[in-house]
């Protein structure tokens, strides 16, 4: 077998083994490569940075499932840290039925992290005052539109069964007039409904954190200003984590930084294998022509 035939027929088990090693390696060998922040991530950060403290709330729609947790969960935690550090109230909700468990995990883990660092009691977070999680609702377009009139009409109770009107935060936040931006963290085409319906009718500002596969679809909306900022995949999450750290809203980077190193290693490996495959293809084709 010629060398060029050999490099086009590498056993898939070797590829799998190399892939496994390269995914795991960055978790043990910590390397921090400075991230260049993309303009769309910076725009989302700047938008949230411009919201006055204790004024309008940020609504976060947690619409991702465990399959895309590595990409979207760090986004959720970074944006929550940013909001809570700036004393911006957060209202969470979900239209993906698989998402509530992850939404609760993101909210509670960030709350516990902040509470553990709080020097005074006033610095700790209180459910119902600093944040609320509304839970999941069917019929998302109808629900999104109806929240423009009254959030309590769509969600009479929160995820934990509390009456919405009994929560102090929800006595202030009645509808989109009290929402500065809706940030959709999704692994599917959820933000488009927010742009088409509540934004058209109520002028809701929309931001998004999407998986890298989904993000290119939303570049036209970023350009037109319909999407006020966009986190794209794990890179977007790592960039947001970096911005949150640099501005002193967090003490450490999140998981996206490590994930990004694993992802970069895999990208290099895939590129090397594609180059090998093409070299083999090119030389074997030339050899056939010469024959």
């Amino acid at each position, binding site marked *: 077998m010629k060398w060029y035939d050999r490099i086009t027929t590498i056993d898939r088990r070797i590829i799998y083994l190399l892939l496994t090693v390269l995914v795991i390696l960055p978790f043990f060998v910590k390397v921090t490569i400075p991230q260049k922040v993309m303009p769309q991530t910076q725009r989302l950060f700047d938008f949230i940075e411009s919201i006055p403290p204790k004024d309008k709330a940020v609504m976060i729609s947690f619409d991702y499932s465990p399959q895309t947790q590595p990409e979207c969960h760090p986004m959720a935690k970074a944006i929550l840290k940013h909001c809570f550090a700036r004393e911006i109230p957060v209202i969470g909700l979900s239209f993906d039925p698989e998402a509530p468990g992850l939404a609760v995990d993101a909210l509670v883990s960030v709350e516990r992290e902040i509470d553990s660092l709080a020097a005074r009691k006033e610095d700790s977070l209180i459910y119902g005052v600093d944040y609320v999680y509304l839970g999941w609702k*069917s019929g998302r377009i109808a629900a999104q539109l109806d929240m423009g009139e009254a959030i309590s009409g769509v969600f009479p109770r929160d995820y934990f069964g509390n009456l919405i009107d009994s929560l102090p935060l929800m006595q202030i936040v009645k509808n989109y007039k009290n929402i500065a931006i809706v940030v959709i963290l999704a692994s599917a085409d959820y933000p488009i409904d927010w742009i088409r319906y509540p934004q058209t009718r109520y002028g809701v500002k929309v931001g998004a954190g999407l998986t890298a596969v989904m993000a290119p679809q939303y570049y036209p909306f970023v350009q037109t200003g319909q999407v006020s900022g966009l986190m794209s995949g794990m890179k977007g999450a790592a960039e947001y984590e970096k911005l949150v750290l640099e501005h002193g809203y967090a003490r450490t980077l999140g998981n996206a930084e490590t994930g990004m190193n694993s992802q970069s290693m895999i990208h290099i490996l895939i590129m090397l294998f594609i180059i090998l495959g093409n070299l083999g293809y090119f030389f074997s084709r030339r050899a056939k022509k010469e024959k």
Partner: protein
Amino acid sequence: MKRKIPLALCFIMGISMIVQFFIPHPASLEFSSVIYKWIIVLMAFALVLAIGNLIRHHGNKIHRRKEDWQYSIVTLAGMVAMATIGLAWGIDPDSLYQRIYLNVMAPLGGTMFALLAYYMASAAYRSFRARSLEATLLLLSAFIVMIGFMPFGQYLHPRFPAFAEWIMKVPNMASQRGILLGVAFGSIATALKIILGIERSWLGGKE
């Protein structure tokens, strides 16, 4: 009558919902709010149907001892167990329901999705060939975007991130916008055909 009443209802509701969207009068908003609540309730019924269908499908499979029927027991048992645990002991952050979700469901979902990386790496190596000009362009742009979006891409060449960003913002955006416009016009045409009763396949059955 069996066809005329649904067609008339579709026409009236379709036109009403289009008109109300552009009228911010309290009466119009009240009307739309009621309709939205109906839609939410109707969508919730779809969930009940889905659960019924799941039970029937897997129940049949177990009853007839079809291939891999044992997995159907796991599916039904999982559904009943999660519903029971959630209803009986609640869904608080420290509840058993949440712990099962985070420690069983989430890793399983993540594992299934992670397998894609292996298939993608193997498939890219075997089939991503520069066989034509179009394939070569696709390959080159994929390389530039991947390198440009990597943290150390900027150290390979300072212009890599900017070039990757240009690919995303110009050629990608132009094609995405074209697709979006096409889909939007198609949706408008289909919606109008349904509202006006030209497209009737949603009624089912024969003419």
